[in-house]
């Protein structure tokens, strides 16, 4: 009898223990769920807090007029529209991710109480992002009127420094423009954050992964040679080098530097598909990135059943592989960080209006994808892309840049997306970038200059 009684008491205590665990560990994340309608209740007591950039600029704030009507104001208008998001008509971006913290106040509880007693609202906490407002503005201006996306990450931490997507919209006036944004007669998809949700063929930027897989399977990759005559046939499918160039005898490094399609298609058909796939999946393909914001999964679909032609296409980034600009930036950032992938994040910390830190988000290591040695080898190869390859425009910067261009063909008429991924300074990387310009042309011509402006802003010229 006593034993049964003890069991029952233990079950009850376990229930209390679980409730406490839920409150301490899980509740903050769970109540931020958009399906939780109770956020509206908090908004009745708290003025939604500000969102600021890492360099102290206000990205979103709430203005209250004399009658007590609140308006959410975005001083940068379109520049941060996707990444910071909006509150009207279902929240997006950081407004969504941090909705509860913004509607929670951590000023002195006594002050809060006294405010409440006087019927005054308390000021919600401030969300300090990892975004650099100046860098964001440079990237935004550099992309100009073109469609595309730019992502910049700090390799050692995973902090997202900039995230631009175009076409865009003004979150201040989204309400009045909503109908036309949704109707989208121009096919702009301005509401979509291309940086995290746009799925593009990676083009030649994918050759970085193909090269890495080749190095893994062939320890003597230094001895690799290929004779490029401008075109080659794989499984009945002709692969041409850009502009019909003949690269002559190339090794692995110069294949990457000059982005030789024949050479990489040749490598691709000989790779162990299972191992190739495993490498890509380790870099983040076919699974969620584990980030707090909305993002699409990049897809790598080549397997043992795929034919030779598809293997060749995949190796040069033209097959069925699709990638988000964020994922592409993350691959570069991982190489830059000696092979250790850091989970990208947008919020550095939240603080109360009286200035004390409420919650600090620490950098999180996702996994070690490749060894430091391999990362350095790949970096050297990506250096040669800048020093004597397709990204030569970056050669004149006062610090070594490592990168890879890409020109992803999307139709038979030669329309292609311009890509650039890379990081700098190569020896001690502070920033990794990924740039895509839709339907613009070659990466060298259209994506590299945008990256150059960003590096100049962030690292100086």
């Amino acid at each position, binding site marked *: 009898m006593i034993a049964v009684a003890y069991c*029952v008491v233990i079950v*009850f205590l376990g229930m209390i223990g679980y*409730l406490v665990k839920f409150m301490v560990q899980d509740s903050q994340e769970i109540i931020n769920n958009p399906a939780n309608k109770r956020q509206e209740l908090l908004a009745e007591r708290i003025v939604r807090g500000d969102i600021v950039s890492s360099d102290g600029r206000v990205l979103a704030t709430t203005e209250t007029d004399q009658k007590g009507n609140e308006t959410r104001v975005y001083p940068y208008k379109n520049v941060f529209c996707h990444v910071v998001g909006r509150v009207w008509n279902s929240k997006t971006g950081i407004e969504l991710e941090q909705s509860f913290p913004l509607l929670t106040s951590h000023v002195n509880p006594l002050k809060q109480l006294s405010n409440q007693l*006087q019927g005054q609202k308390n000021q919600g906490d401030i969300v300090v992002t990892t975004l650099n407002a100046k860098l964001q503005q440079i990237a935004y201006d550099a992309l100009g009127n073109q469609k595309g996306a730019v992502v910049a990450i700090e390799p050692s931490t995973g902090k997202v420094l900039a995230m631009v997507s175009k076409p865009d919209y003004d979150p201040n006036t989204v309400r009045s423009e909503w109908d036309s944004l949704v109707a989208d007669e121009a096919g702009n998809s301005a509401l979509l954050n291309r940086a995290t949700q746009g799925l593009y063929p990676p083009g030649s930027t994918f050759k970085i992964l193909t090269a890495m897989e080749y190095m893994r399977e062939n320890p003597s990759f230094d001895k690799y040679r290929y004779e490029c005559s401008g075109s080659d046939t794989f499984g009945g499918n002709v692969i041409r080098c850009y502009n019909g160039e003949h690269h002559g005898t190339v090794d692995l490094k110069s294949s990457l530097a000059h982005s030789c399609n024949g050479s990489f298609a040749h490598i691709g058909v000989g790779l162990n598909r299972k191992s190739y796939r495993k490498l890509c999946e380790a870099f983040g393909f076919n699974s969620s990135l584990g980030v707090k914001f909305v993002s699409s999964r990049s897809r790598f679909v080549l397997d043992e059943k795929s034919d030779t032609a598809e293997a060749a296409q995949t190796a040069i980034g033209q097959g069925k592989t699709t990638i988000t600009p964020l994922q592409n930036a993350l691959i570069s950032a991982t190489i830059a960080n000696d092979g250790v992938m850091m989970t990208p994040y947008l919020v550095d910390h939240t603080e109360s209006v009286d200035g004390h830190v409420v919650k600090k988000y620490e950098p999180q290591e996702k996994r070690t994808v490749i060894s430091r040695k391999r990362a350095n080898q790949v970096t050297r190869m990506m250096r040669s892309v800048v020093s004597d390859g397709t990204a030569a425009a970056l050669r004149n910067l006062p610090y070594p840049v490592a990168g890879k261009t890409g020109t992803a063909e999307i139709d038979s008429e030669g329309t292609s997306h311009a890509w650039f991924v890379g990081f700098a300074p190569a020896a001690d990387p502070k920033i990794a970038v990924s740039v895509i310009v839709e339907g613009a042309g070659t990466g060298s011509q259209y994506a590299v200059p945008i990256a150059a402006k960003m590096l100049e802003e962030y690292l100086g010229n």
Partner: protein
Amino acid sequence: MDKQEAARKLQELLGNSNTIGVMHSVVVELSKYIIIFLFAVYTWHCFTVFIGRDKERKERVYRHQLKLMFTIHFICSLVLFLNSLHVQIIILYLLQVVLFVFAGKAYPYVYEGMSKIVLNNMLMLLMVGMVMIERLDTESAIRQMIFAAATCVAGLFIPYIIEKFSYFDIFGWFYAIAGLGLLALVFVIGEERYGAKNWVSIGSFALQPSEFVKIIYVFFAAAFLAKAERFKDLVLVTAVAAAHVLILVLEKDLGAALIFYITYLVILYVSTERLSYLLAGLACGSGAAVVAYHLFTHVQNRVIAWRDPWSTIANQGYQVAQSLFAFGTGGWFGMGLGEGMPDKIPVASSDFIISAIGEELGVFFAICVVLVEISCFVMFVNIALKMSRRFYS
């Protein structure tokens, strides 16, 4: 009438707008902290009153607990009234006070030497339940009031009945037949709710026969097992218990079936002290649970909601998710009575009332409720251990 409207009306009635507005928010805002503090003190007493042998001190603590209960009751009712300005709230409050005072005086009189802790806890839980139901739905609160009053009065006659029928344990077969009969009643006049056919309506009142049969069932099991000498007796009583469970399964009221099953196992174990029976019973129960999972979709839904409410948030997971939102958003100190959205939680006024309590009165308060329940249970066991006759233990 919502809160703002009530506050405005109050200002109109009493003039001097500013002070009244501040007063109103003082009561509503501060009350939640005060309530939690008072309830915490109450709960503390539940477990510390047994330290020492000073009888007078104990009596003082019991009286103190009652005062705490009445204070919490008053504050909650005041907040409910200020938020709605319904006269019904005042009437209900006064009726509740009459009921609690009556029960508090009459029970110790009828039950000589009863545990004051159990009495105080009974009143406290009754009060918390009433306040919360009143906040959710006044109509249900009136019904709850009637039922509470009726059962409180009925409870006073139990010692008399036991004394009159001092051979309570000879009615074994009577209990068995009455219990099975009542359970089977729903096949004739029952109605289906939430996937199970287990309700009977009488006028505007709806009740679940299984709630009453629970008591008769325990009497039946106790009566038989108290006399059981041979293995044959055990088989017989187990078969009758199984019949109860089977009827409930046929009604698809699996929750009640589980309670009846576990109750029987525990009574069986307590009376025979054979651990093997308990273990075998639990093994069979687990097997039956697997079968039930494959047989009934509403069981599958429960499992889906339990494993991951988030991926099925619009369907099976809705209730669990809303309940977690309620706890999480309310936080340790709650949103304050009338300040949350407990109406978003399906069945908040009965099965999920603890979520509503957690949301508005705070997780600390909800934990105190569980601790009070533990206190009740410990006292029940304590009483049973003191019983000399096998039937009562």
